[in-house]
């Protein structure tokens, strides 16, 4: 079986009859793969303010600790995520002892407003 004209023409006909591989993205939303590392979801009710996430983040400055009275633990501190520096490596979610941080399948991280590229805060 060499690379002959027969194979090439057969391939061409098959591809012509096939639907395109690309999607009409902005008009038709495409779901990211299972286990995709996208927008960060942070559950404030689980946070204990141990700052392990901030200490182990490889993109320095992507996570800083801020004061927040809503945190139940004594420390009264929670992480603040800066998604413009984040490299979505999942380290924070991995080291979190209470599993308060989760990476979702949402990849729509472009917006005209700053709020559009923010992390999701839940458990308030």
């Amino acid at each position, binding site marked *: 079986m060499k690379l002959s004209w027969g194979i090439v023409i057969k391939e061409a006909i098959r591809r012509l009859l096939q639907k395109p591989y690309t999607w009409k993205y902005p008009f038709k939303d495409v779901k990211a793969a*299972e286990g995709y590392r996208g927008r960060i979801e942070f559950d404030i009710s689980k946070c204990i303010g141990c700052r392990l996430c901030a200490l182990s983040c490889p993109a320095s400055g992507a996570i800083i600790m801020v004061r927040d009275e809503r945190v139940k633990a004594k420390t009264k501190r929670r992480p603040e995520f800066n998604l413009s520096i984040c490299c979505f490596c999942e380290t924070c979610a991995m080291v979190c002892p209470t599993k308060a941080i989760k990476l979702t399948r949402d990849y729509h991280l472009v917006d005209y407003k700053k709020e559009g590229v923010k992390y999701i805060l839940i458990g308030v």
Partner: protein
Amino acid sequence: MTTIFPFGPIHPALKEPVGFIFEVEGERIVKAIPNLGFAHRGIEKLLESKTWFQATYIVEHICGICSQVHQSCYLMGVEKLYEKEIPERAAYIRMLSLELERIHSHLLWMGVAFHEAGFDTPFMYTWRDREKVLDIAEAFFGRRVVWTTSRPGGVKRDLTDKVIKMIREFIPYMRKRVKWYEEILTTDKTVLARFRNVGYLDHHKAVELGAVGPVARASGVKRDIRLEDPYYFYKESPFRIVLEKDGDALAKFLVRVKEIDVSLDIIEWVLDNIPKGPLFVNIPPMARPKLGKVISRHEAPRGELIYYEESNGNLRPYRVRVRTPTFANVVSIIAMIEGGYIADIPIVVASIDPCISCMDRVLIIDRKRKKRKIMSKDELIALSRKEFKRKRIKGEII
């Protein structure tokens, strides 16, 4: 009359930029001098400012194609410094990711090499096959390129039924394709005309210049870290070394194609024999390693990868040194290219699997006439294709 060519250097956004200065007589190359260091990003210095834990994600970005082998090699040293042994299941999953990566890297290289020779149809075919590996990676690790499989002490994610099914379907498909590629390489006129007797490197020269990976194996040098210093479970796996004797660009091609078959065997073996158990042993992110120096070696898709790690007992590495395979192979380009034609440069340089983008522009200086001529990558590729046409007209095609 000698003419001098500064060749390269750079397009820093892409793989590994490298510059060359060629001295030519007419069309023949008399002398070649490599010129390195154009893509210095200061990663080794950056690693000194990160903790051992954080550095796991920095080393992964050294190479976009073989990111997993960098991470795995680095972590092997780190786990030794922390005196922890990873669980068996984690080692199996790491092996799986390394072999998947080898397949995707070789397929990518094959496509590029075909393209350089002006043979674009199989370029499309190989990249379509590569897409299947990337789909598996996306389903498994959540990313197509920088996978982040591992964490210090083990791996992050477990194999799911969906991924196992995808890989099981992929193996027979790819085996069929590999056979077909092998047939193309050994029988097709276009390929034989362009790759045979180009960029020849003999056995002694390969040993002398310290060639590694497929470049060395194509010259018959038995050099593979999976055989010499087996890590993880490569000793038990059905790994076999692929050797070719010819040492030309075609042999390097064949070695890579046959290696895909070996990788498929290993992947199948991993899926059959993977034990159950935990995914990682806990290494706390703020723990300090013991004092010492470690060297770890891996067989990357391009050859031997070495990591040297030195710890002074602190949270941050004292020194991390990385020796990538391309650095070892760049010297062998000199031996391969001398005596060859200008039109063969793209194929010879591509045959060691470096950054093709290095060929952004070529400056030709005529010493006697004091003339300068700048050649772009496209012009050089056009020259390469012209050479092929000339050979076809002359009847040199076998």
